């Protein structure tokens, strides 16, 4: 390997970064192809990994299509839409006899996507850009990052879903303009307004509801059908599936029939619209507020982009058209556009995509608790991130060594109306008289929308230690303990990966050998050396199909040794060629 690497070795290629849409209902992965973003196929040959996890009888957990197949057969040990609980990251969801936290469920889905990508590329994939709803708060974002860590995936960036969609749409489309992205998915609703100018996507404002989506429509219709059935249903999961099928049909036809286990009911689009109107109306308020925050009116919006499966519903499209007085874009598949945008962002991070830059905002104001349970705002919503603010703290009593800072997120004035994020404890403050300590605390929201807190003692100039106690999320130690590679079945995964990697390397060496045979040095090689190379080559091909990576490595080394003379001769030929000024 060493010798061929000198001659032909691929230059250190940076790790691949994939884009992932970790959705409430479905998840997808994409990558930057030579022509643009493209979806990575799944193990089953499809494009979508259902965001579903299922506990098997042997105690292991499967995700994606195999889990979806168990929804109706094993409803007690199968979970869907777990993303809706990301704001309660430390709370276990019941799964069979055990529980699973929302980040762990997310990790199993990420792992399925990661495995698909590795099978597709034939190499290990460890880095990703993952999308989140724009209106996700700090805790939900942190929980998503934790899911990545549990899955062994380094999430380089969290990107907001509507912004990702704009990236997928906006490439080369227009030099400047104002775009509204209306993203109504399975579990969440987002509205973002962006200004596009010469490749810069500047988000002006964002709003939304992280508990509003197609799931709410399903639940409403299930409740009505259940009432119809006299409150009893043999298999509620089959009923839900029948409802979803009817809902989807009503996007294309004027009537549909809900049919399940002897129950039958026809529904037409007018009835359907009437039933779901209150849910769709809940998206209007955030849109109006978003326009107001962007200091714009509907007339200022040049283009509207629709994202998410629920935007296929005619009533939703009509609502958007009426709201923005513009015909929305639907050219790209609303289920895929977010993943494609995530791949574009991955390309921006890797440097493949130049001239495009995303300037996103924080969706919620960040504040700290002050006297009397009042929230003092530090960083206002819709501030471009990264954003920061510093605040000075002091002690209230003589010799006080610790100060507790309660950080909240939300728009209201009173602590109890905002969402508690975490308590940060400044520790080991120099014991001095009350009011004398001067601790400067820096609150910084990074490009992922996640809060970082650091502190400095202004009297000593020393870095001040800060301990974080998340209000709802997992602690570092809890995440550590959940990491999937520590599970028993990980051992088989590692072995499989080692074999895969060894084969990739063997492929490279065999290819290098083939091209070496075209070199003048091969023609001049003594017959004995040629014979030895042929033998080693054949042995490597035999070892190639074993499932022992050590065997493959052994024969790679043997081939390497056999071709030492060839490699040296080629090097000499190359040097001679260089001296003559000709290229090999």
């Amino acid at each position, binding site marked *: 390997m060493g010798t061929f690497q000198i001659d032909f070795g691929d230059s250190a290629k940076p790790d691949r970064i994939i884009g992932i849409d970790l959705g409430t209902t479905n998840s997808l992965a994409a990558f930057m192809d030579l022509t643009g973003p493209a979806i990575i196929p799944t193990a089953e040959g499809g494009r979508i990994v259902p965001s579903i996890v299922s506990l098997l009888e042997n105690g292991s957990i499967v995700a994606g299509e195999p889990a979806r197949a168990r929804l109706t057969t094993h409803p007690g040990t199968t979970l869907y839409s777990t993303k809706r609980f990301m704001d309660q990251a430390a709370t276990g969801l019941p799964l069979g006899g055990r529980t699973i936290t929302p980040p762990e469920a997310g990790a199993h889905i990420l792992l399925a996507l990661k495995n698909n990508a590795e099978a597709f590329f034939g190499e290990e994939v460890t880095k990703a850009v993952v999308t989140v709803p724009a209106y996700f708060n700090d805790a939900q974002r942190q929980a998503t990052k934790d899911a990545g860590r549990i899955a062994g995936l380094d999430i380089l960036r969290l990107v907001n879903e509507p912004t990702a969609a704009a990236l997928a749409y906006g490439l080369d489309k227009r030099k400047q303009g104002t775009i509204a992205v209306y993203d109504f998915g399975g579990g969440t609703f987002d509205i973002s307004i962006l200004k596009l*100018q010469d490749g810069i996507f500047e988000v002006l404002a964002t709003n939304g509801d992280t508990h509003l989506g197609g799931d709410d429509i399903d639940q409403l219709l299930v409740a009505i059908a259940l009432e119809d059935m006299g409150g009893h249903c043999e298999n509620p999961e089959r009923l839900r599936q029948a409802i979803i099928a009817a809902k989807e049909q009503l996007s294309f036809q004027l009537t549909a029939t809900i049919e399940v286990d002897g129950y039958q009911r026809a529904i037409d689009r007018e009835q359907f619209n009437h039933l779901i109107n209150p849910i769709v109306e809940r998206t209007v308020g955030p849109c109006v507020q978003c326009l107001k925050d962007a200091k714009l009116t509907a007339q200022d919006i040049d283009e509207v982009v629709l994202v998410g499966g629920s935007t296929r519903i005619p009533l939703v499209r009509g609502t958007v058209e009426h709201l923005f007085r513009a015909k929305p874009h639907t050219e790209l598949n609303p289920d895929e556009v977010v993943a494609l945008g995530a791949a574009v962002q991955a390309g921006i991070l890797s440097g493949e995509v130049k001239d495009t830059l995303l300037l996103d905002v924080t969706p919620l104001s960040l504040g700290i608790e002050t006297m009397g349970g009042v929230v003092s705002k530090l960083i206002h919503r819709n501030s471009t991130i990264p954003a920061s603010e510093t605040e000075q703290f002091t002690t209230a009593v003589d010799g006080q060594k610790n100060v507790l800072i309660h950080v909240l997120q939300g728009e209201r004035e009173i602590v109890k109306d905002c969402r508690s994020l975490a308590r940060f404890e400044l520790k080991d403050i120099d014991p001095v008289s009350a009011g004398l300590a001067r601790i400067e605390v820096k609150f910084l929201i*990074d490009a992922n929308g996640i809060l970082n807190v650091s502190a400095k003692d202004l009297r000593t100039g020393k870095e001040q230690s800060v301990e974080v106690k998340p209000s709802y999320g997992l602690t570092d130690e809890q995440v550590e303990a959940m990491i999937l590679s520590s599970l028993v079945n990980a051992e088989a995964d590692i072995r499989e990966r080692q074999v895969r990697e060894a084969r990739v390397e063997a492929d490279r060496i065999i290819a290098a050998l083939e091209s070496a045979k075209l070199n003048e040095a091969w023609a001049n090689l003594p017959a004995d050396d040629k014979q030895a190379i042929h033998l080693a080559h054949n042995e490597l091909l035999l070892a190639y199909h074993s499932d022992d990576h050590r065997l493959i490595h052994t024969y790679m080394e043997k081939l390497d040794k056999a071709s030492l003379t060839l490699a040296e001769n080629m090097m000499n030929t190359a040097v001679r060629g260089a001296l003559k000024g000709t290229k090999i």
Partner: protein
Amino acid sequence: MDYYRVLGLDPKLQLDLNELQQLFYARSRQLHPDRFARAEASVRDAALIESSLLNDAYRTLRDPLARAEYILKENGFDIGLQGTKDVPPELLEEVFDLNMALEELKAGDESARPQLSAARDNFEAMLAKSSAELDGLFAEYDQHPGPEPLKPIRALLNRRRYIQNLLRDVHGYLSN
């Protein structure tokens, strides 16, 4: 004056907003963390700090009032909530009339409503006028930078803040 430095600007109070935006975009292309995703941790940290400073700077400087407050603070003026409770003397009469109307409305006298609307219009006109006044003061400071021309700016900002608080109350009562 870190906010001006990070944008490569002279510390002036009068700024061209279009030019400011173009500068912000150009600097973002250089400093945004996306540009350093593959760099080592210390470089990434530095980019994070610098780009947050850039964003904070743009957010502050594009708003004339926040910009003036920043310059005041950097020049050692206390810009806290000072002076917002004391009625600026030139407003005494208007504020007295307004409070009367508010009391009447609170007591259920709906006839005070038109008077309140008139007061609102009056205060809004004052705000608009003070914006023009502020422009003149900004120009003066840019010609002769120093603490002296900042004093009338601080006084004007305090008066504006007082009027804004009043207006918020009036809007609240009128919409109830």
